[in-house]
């Protein structure tokens, strides 16, 4: 019973968090339609145009999501993250970051457990840095910035995450088994 209540409250919080922003924007539109209907109409047309432009890449995003969900399971990410040492450890943690999906909050408990088990903080930092590379969102990114830019950005983001991992390795003084060398 308590667990049902707890789940209910989590869902309520989630729904509020998801809808508070769009509902606030809609309220602004509501007010504008009353005081400046012409400009509000212009704004809604502009939004509509933007939505039409993004519709095709957004459909691709959904298809990529299905493919990734079909082949990648959370167990794969858990098997990669924090395993191995040296270059292998970095590659595995970076891979785990790239293929991980969902909000970062969902990953904190697992990262905490891994840190307590002795997985080096630098590998956790590499994982977090690589969350910026989202394969299923690439169609949207390419539609805005072009594939050359996206390709370069992905490479430098991965390299940058290793740089951040190195900084964490040097500045966070914990030296268990699997740290960057």
């Amino acid at each position, binding site marked *: 019973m308590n667990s049902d209540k707890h789940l209910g409250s989590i869902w309520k919080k989630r729904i509020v968090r998801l809808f508070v922003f769009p509902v*606030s*924007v809609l309220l602004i539109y509501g007010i504008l339609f009353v005081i400046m209907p012409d400009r509000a109409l212009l704004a809604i047309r502009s939004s509509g145009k933007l939505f039409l432009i993004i519709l095709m890449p957004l459909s691709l995003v959904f298809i990529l999501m299905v493919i990734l969900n079909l082949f990648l399971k959370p167990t794969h990410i858990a098997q990669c993250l924090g395993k191995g040492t040296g270059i292998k450890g970095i590659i595995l943690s970076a891979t785990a970051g790239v293929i991980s999906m969902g909000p970062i909050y969902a990953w904190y408990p697992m990262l905490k457990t891994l840190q307590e088990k002795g997985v080096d903080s630098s590998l956790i930092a590499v994982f977090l840095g690589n969350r910026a590379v989202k394969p299923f969102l690439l169609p949207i990114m390419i539609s805005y910035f072009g594939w050359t830019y996206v390709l370069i950005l992905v490479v430098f983001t991965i390299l940058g995450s290793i740089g951040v991992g190195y900084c964490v390795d040097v500045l966070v003084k914990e030296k268990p088994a699997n740290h960057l060398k």
Partner: protein
Amino acid sequence: MKIAIPADKPDLEAKVGTRLGTSQYLVVVDLKTMAFEAVTSPAASGQSISGIEVVVLAISKKVNAVLTGYCSPTAEKYLSASGIKVLTGVSGTVSEVVEQYKNGDLLKDMGVEHKSESRRTKFDRPALFHALKTSFNQFVNLLPILVGVFLLIGLFNAFVSKGFISSLFSGNRVLDTLLGACFGTLFAGNPINSYIIGGELLEYGVSLLAVTAFIIAWVTVGLVQLPAEISALGFRFALVRNAASFLMSIAIAFTTVGALNFIKGLFF
């Protein structure tokens, strides 16, 4: 063939654990040689653990079956997806259960046919249905904020002049990139929103350097989630990682745009 059994002690005379996720040990028995290995379960730490870790442990031990008192539907789903058979409602000592399994008694009791350990194909219908359902949920979760962003950009286009946005950015490459990284640090959420906002900022004449720093900082630096990161991974880690990621977002912006200009100069 190897089977994994959760247990309260690290030997064959231990009682089979009632729950896979809370038992202290996972006893892995090789049915051919009857050699066994008792692995300390992640649950033994006494701290709250992610159930998925016990599943990962079983998978990493390359077991063919898990025999337990109870297994959560999620854990069972992931084990099955990895080709591991799950038998629940099992009780007694580890050695008794192993013997029953070897004789096929357990399977008969549960009305399960003894099949060879054929692995499920990855293209089976339930897996596809599950992937579609998960993707649909992820997509639906993404939409409300995305629609809000579209509507807000519409408002910006109708009410805010390009001159105003340009006035926020000085035209100085370093300062603009720093400002882009600061904006990215302040906001959080799905990266798709940062791409759309970044793309629109470009339309307003904001430099690609500032937009790149904004996009990278959006995901890698999180002021909003900083308290959660501190609580999970420690103050020092969170502070160092976020500060390094902030500086790195600026470095990535310069190297990316520099490389892009170099490639454009070569080929276009």
